[in-house]
């Protein structure tokens, strides 16, 4: 067993390795993850270093013959990295809460023992930071959600959730960039372009950018 204050390192078959930082889901931890990603992406045999939420996936160009050196390097780097503060840009996203796409707004409110207006105002209050990209092209995981509107992921993921869905999954929130399967609960939607493969950088947002949701409308 790994001590609770030590990182957890586990294999994803022979394709990748997952590093999970100990501690809370917050910006200081995430800044260390960004720093670790910048370091590890330069190591030999590593194809990409992909930040998640206080964790990091390393995909292998070639699977290492043995993993001990890599695991040691990760642990040592985690202990020594300075936090990397990325000064991103701030964008404002108008959101229609509720309605057909945001049909889980009511169930989130019921689950959390709050009114619909409370859920909306709590969700729209913080300045969120893009912690990581993942899931599907251009999707951003956001840090900064108020834990009062936490709702566990679905028992069974939906086969199709709409593009632009503003959703809650566990203690996280995010906006989907295109339609597809999802285990999260959609509480609203936005129409903003997050991804275009013809852009020099295909994703509109990057870790460190910030988002403020503006309440455009609440459909009950």
């Amino acid at each position: 067993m790994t001590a609770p204050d030590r990182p957890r390192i586990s294999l994803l078959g022979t394709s990748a390795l997952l590093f999970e930082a100990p501690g809370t889901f917050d910006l200081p931890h995430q800044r260390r993850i960004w720093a670790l990603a910048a370091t590890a992406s330069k190591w030999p045999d590593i194809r990409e270093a992909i930040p998640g939420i206080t964790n990091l996936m390393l995909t292998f160009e070639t699977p290492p013959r043995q993993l001990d050196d890599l695991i040691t390097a990760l642990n040592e780097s985690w202990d020594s990295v300075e936090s990397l503060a990325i000064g991103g840009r701030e964008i404002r996203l108008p959101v229609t809460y509720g309605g057909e796409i945001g049909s889980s707004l009511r169930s989130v409110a019921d689950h959390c023992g709050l009114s619909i207006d409370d859920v909306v105002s709590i969700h729209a209050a913080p300045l969120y930071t893009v912690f990581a990209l993942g899931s599907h092209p251009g999707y951003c995981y956001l840090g900064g959600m108020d834990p009062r509107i936490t709702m566990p992921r679905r028992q069974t993921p939906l086969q199709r959730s709409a593009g632009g869905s503003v959703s809650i999954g566990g203690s996280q929130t995010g906006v989907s960039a295109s339609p597809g399967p999802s285990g999260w609960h959609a509480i609203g939607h936005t129409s903003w372009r997050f991804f275009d493969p013809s852009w020099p950088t295909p994703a509109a947002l990057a870790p460190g950018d910030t988002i403020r949701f503006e309440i455009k409308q609440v459909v009950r």
Partner: protein
Amino acid sequence: MIEILSVTGPASIQDLGRFDQYRFGVGTSGAMDDVALRAGNILLGNDENAAGIEIPMMPFSLRFGRDMAFALTGAGVEAEIAGRAVPPWWRSHARAADILNIKAMPHGARLYLAVSGGVDVPIVLGSRSTQFRGEFGGLNGRPLQVGDILPCATSTATIGELGVEPADITLARPNTAADETIVRVIVAGEYDGFDADTQALFWSSSWKITPQSNRYGYRLQGPAVKPKAPIEKRSHGIVPGVIQIPPNGQPIIQMRDAQTSGGYPKIATVIRADLWRLGQARLGSKLRFEQTAYTDALAAEAEMSAYLERLRANVRLVEETRTCR
């Protein structure tokens, strides 16, 4: 060029995949049976990453716009062109206006049509593979439709019929019952979150591949496998082969079009050397998992590489012999 005359189900253009765009949320896509696509390209003397057509359902037919060598690999196949049969894992030659009729797939789940020089759709973010979720790559980021015209690179590759031994014969796994696929897996981060009985149930069960299975993921049906206590992970990167356990206890194997991250607990990951076997497992068939160690998984990859190296050597030898005559 090639014109699609009939298509059943989501056929798509795929190469080996898009492997270095995870940081933008872009998954690998690529052939579900990469070994078969490589074999087809080897038969034709193509770059092994050349794009071909992945065909998951029959019937399927197309017309060749000019003389061209092609190969069919992957699933078993009943196909004919200009009145003659085309066997599986076989290279053949089409004349301009010939129609290739692919009628049935007696075993396996995906057939690959490779053409001399490869299907020449634009490279997007480093690959020609279709990215369905992002709607790019392949032909306009979508499945093939009747009437589609596919550009093909010009090639001077040698012509002549030639077959190779299918991967499912050479790389057959021992003790595999008919209509059952066994894949090797390495345990993943949350394996210890399941008690010993549940772990045993995961290994001993014969899992049914449900009809809700596709290039995104295989949803399995069997006894509920649930962790000791509910596990809600922070979102993290995942790769094709990862087996997630959602709260209903029914495993989902992430496949080539899977999301690049997730948060359901992971019990194990199918090793890279066995992903192609999943690509050939049919809906409704049975699946079993066999635990393997990291070093054994690397050995399995080496075995797969050795098979492909033999194909390359054999094809080279045949071409050299022909040139000498």
